[in-house]
């Protein structure tokens, strides 16, 4: 289990990295935290000609408040996300999601941008980006553009990023301070990919749900935004929620699959249960 040969490049600026990506014409792979890529290299499932290590680009690090939201550098390590006071205040569900990514040791290297760019359908951070309405800023030598997280994921490990593009920032819109986080992951062991995962937030105004952003992971070929239940929740008084009915709607958009560890029907069933349990608990109600 040793990587196949490649040329290693280590740019110090975004421009340099974009130029190297353009020159490689699709033959290069970006190395962010490496916590997923390195196993793929070792297994020779990934055999790039050129590996571009973006760990030394300072402009890709750190989180800052911007108008109406938070801008996170893609090379922010997952453990930095967990420890960041701004993110804890502004995006608590993102912090919770980050706590469930891999293990302490992998989170010391693994980055938020690496996880979001990879598009593992059972991963926590892409789904959280989808749920909270995030968008990614991407760059290439041809310029930059914004892609909404909901439009980013096309299939397992397949994204709307072009081969010569790289993520330069992730923008999360502000959610009101009293928003309620929804996060539940069902995984066999800590650090495993989810069999079923639920992430997102709701806000309550005057006893009614005023805003909802909810997504699933491990429930289809991509992170799945639970649009039907989001729509159904809006305006609902929280004292009078039909949790069972909502749970049914919550999984309506999903397309779970059979794999080694669980079947599609298991995922749907548990999805309903954890949706009802999580929403009920977070809104201080008993389960169905």
């Amino acid at each position, binding site marked *: 289990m040793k990587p196949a040969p*490649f040329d290693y490049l280590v740019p110090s600026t975004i421009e340099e990295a974009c130029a190297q990506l353009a020159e490689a014409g699709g033959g290069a792979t970006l190395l962010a935290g490496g916590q997923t890529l390195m196993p793929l290299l070792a297994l020779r499932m990934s055999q790039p000609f050129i590996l571009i290590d973006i760990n030394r680009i300072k402009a890709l690090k750190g989180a800052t408040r911007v108008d109406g939201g938070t801008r996170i550098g893609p090379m922010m390590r997952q453990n930095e996300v967990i420890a960041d006071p701004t993110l804890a205040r502004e995006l608590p569900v993102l912090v919770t999601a980050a706590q469930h990514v891999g293990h*302490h*040791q*992998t989170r*010391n290297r693994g980055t938020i941008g690496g996880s979001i760019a990879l598009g593992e359908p059972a991963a926590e951070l892409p789904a959280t980006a989808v749920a909270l309405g995030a968008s990614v800023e991407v760059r290439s030598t041809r310029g930059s553009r914004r892609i909404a997280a909901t439009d980013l994921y096309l299939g397992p490990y397949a994204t709307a990023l072009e081969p010569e593009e790289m993520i330069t920032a992730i923008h999360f819109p502000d959610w009101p301070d009293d928003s309620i986080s929804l996060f539940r992951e069902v995984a066999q062991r800590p*650090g495993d990919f989810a069999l079923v995962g639920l992430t997102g937030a709701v806000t309550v105004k005057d006893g009614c749900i005023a805003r909802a952003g909810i997504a699933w992971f491990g429930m289809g070929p991509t992170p799945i935004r639970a649009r039907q239940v989001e729509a159904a929740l809006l305006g609902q008084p929280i004292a009078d929620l039909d949790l069972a009915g909502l749970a049914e709607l919550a999984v309506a958009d999903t397309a779970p699959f059979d794999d080694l560890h669980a079947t599609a029907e298991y995922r749907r069933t548990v999805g309903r249960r954890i949706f009802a349990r999580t929403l009920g608990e977070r809104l201080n109600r008993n389960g169905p």
Partner: protein
Amino acid sequence: MSTHPIQLTINGRRHDATVEGRLVLSDFLRGDAGYTGVHVGCEHGVCGACTVIVDGLAVRSCLMLAVQADGAAITTVEGLAADDGTLHPVQQTMRDEHGLQCGFCTPGIVMTLAALTGGPNKANSETLLNALSGHICRCTGYQGIRRAALKLAGDAA
């Protein structure tokens, strides 16, 4: 295939080397630098045996390239005990609690515990046990490892 000069500090000593881009850090530490206490158990980042401390943080050395450690300060399990052989508190506690059998996963566990208990912000037992979920031990059933973690966190009975 590219090669790269690197300079780094391992257990307080400077190392200079020229490495192939694809050389994995764990292989560099074991083979080129001679720190065979770094154990390679899975080479895909799950078992945790290869964990070392890079710039103060516990990381999997099988999930880094050697070239990425250019300029870094690395501590391996060989770098913990005092020169006179006195064990590091983590090592001593692991021994006292029978936290190992075959010893293969042990260096990684020791490095995670050392990274989290060595600094000014000593981790609590919940943090330590959570971090230990990133290590597979096939021998002990984790009994002594858990006792050692609780003791190091100051929560032991």
